[in-house]
């Protein structure tokens, strides 16, 4: 994404902040919608559009779980593994998904075909629906059994990517 596109996205909200630094996060989130993750070029474009240094912008991006500085699959599947969900079987869901996608059981990862990333999430605020899963930035869903979760990723593998959604 280039700096002009980012500026165009920021212009309507610029007046809402007394300090333009507040625009860095909206800019990063917008830049990420293009490829699903942030490349160094994207971050340089954010730096140019907001007037801060690339290293500052990169340090901000690296702080947040949901800003990805490395490539992710077409769909990002976040499995909550925190306590309430663990009591409701999230470890079983997690392992079934890692197994199904052929990724590392400790860290998750992206399937060989590049379609699906499985990642751990901390409490998603849907503990009443544990074990729960969030796909990209869509509304979190649950509860899931391991079998239902596998069915979900199989459907996602076939479904088109919602490019307009922030991931």
């Amino acid at each position: 994404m280039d700096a002009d596109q980012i500026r165009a996205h920021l212009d309507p909200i610029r007046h809402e902040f007394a300090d333009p630094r507040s625009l860095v996060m909206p800019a990063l989130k917008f830049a990420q919608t293009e490829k699903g993750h942030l490349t160094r070029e994207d971050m340089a474009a954010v730096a140019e559009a907001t007037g801060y240094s690339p290293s500052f912008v990169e340090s901000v991006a690296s702080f947040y779980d949901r800003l990805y500085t490395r490539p992710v699959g077409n769909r990002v599947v976040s499995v909550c593994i925190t306590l309430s969900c663990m009591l409701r079987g999230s470890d079983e869901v997690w392992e079934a998904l890692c197994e199904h996608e052929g990724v590392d059981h400790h860290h998750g990862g992206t399937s060989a075909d590049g379609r699906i990333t499985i990642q751990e999430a901390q409490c998603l605020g849907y503990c009443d629906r544990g074990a729960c899963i969030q796909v990209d930035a869509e509304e979190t869903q649950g509860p899931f059994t391991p079998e239902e979760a596998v069915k979900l990723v199989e459907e996602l593998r076939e479904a088109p990517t919602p490019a307009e959604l922030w991931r």
Partner: protein
Amino acid sequence: MPILNSVYRHREAGKTLTALADYRAAGGFKALEHALGEMEADDLQYAFVRSGLRGRGGAGFPMGRKASFLPKDSKLPKYVVCNADESEPGTFKDREIMEMNPFQLLEGLALAGFAIGAARGYIYIRGEYEHQARILDAAVLAAREAGFLGTNILRSGFDYDITVYRGAGAYICGEETALLESLEGKRGQPRLKPPFPAVAGLYGSPTLINNVETLAALPPIVTNGADWYLSMGTEKSPGTKLFSISGHVVKPGNYEVVLGDTTLRELIYEHAGGLREGRRVKAVWVGGSSVPVIGEEHLDVPLDYESLQGVGTALGSGGCIVMDDSGCIVRACLRLATFYRHESCGKCSPCREGTSWFERILQRMVDGEGRMEDFDLLESLFRRVSGKTLCPLADGAIAPIRSAITLFRDDFIRVCQEGSPRPDPMLPATVG
């Protein structure tokens, strides 16, 4: 004790109030009309103080008193920031308010803004709540179109608008000064206090920060009067509170209870449907995961700030996590230790290093490789970390583990020797 759905209007109405007309029909925006038309800002602040409303984000600080700390004579613009970062494990009450009743939050933010003379309000919402953020975006637009936000609101001369600001996944951004850093476009790392946000908050300006549930309680307080709110609950814990309950209960969900009126046992067994057949309560984290854990012997504690403190725990965020006797307490502690290790912002070394040690030691216990010295090692780590950090996250990591070791020492010793095989979880099918 029965549930009282009296403060949050979607509960009283028994339906979602995401359409402005529905919220109006349920009595919405009457408080703002009344305040702007007939009240002085100081009277409004005084009503907040008198209601006794305490912050619902975790610390329970009186809301009106916090508002009164903002300097009256400051030349700088003032701000209200709504903490919608809701990331405390076990807590999902703010989500319900934003999803089902966004206008009540906006009205509360506008009332708080008028009371302190704010230039703008911000809702800092966790990035994972994109769905809820969109509902808020739509509500802000609708409220602005109807003249409840924007310039010269209801022809009162008061200008005020609200910005919905999305985070991007970091528990620590729920800590108020980390939230401000994040809202200023930086890494979300806590600031040294003082100065407190009331004096130097967002962009160095006086800032009032409150939780979603706190702010959403303001409109009914203004409409029905502070005395009405005070008449519910106990002297030190007036009003109602939303409890989120999850884990090994049959009907997880949010329940609004009058503080001091309902016991933990009633919350679990009457409201949340109890446990599975044949199971008993093993451990409960009543106020989210950052509070000391309690066991079956305290189930009759009334749910209010002072009673919970009396049994050695805290009301916290009201995110009540229940584990039955099928669960393993050491594994539960390990899972929480992993959470805090992951969420430590890394600014202070006792927290950064300490949380990773807690996790490592608990992991070897679960693997059956724990040693008896590990108990002393953990305790000495707790002593070296506790109170020596910039923000309370580190103490929040210690509280559940330290209390569990005291309460369930036999389990810890057994697990150290034998390890702990993973117990069967309670699957959705069990609930039906």
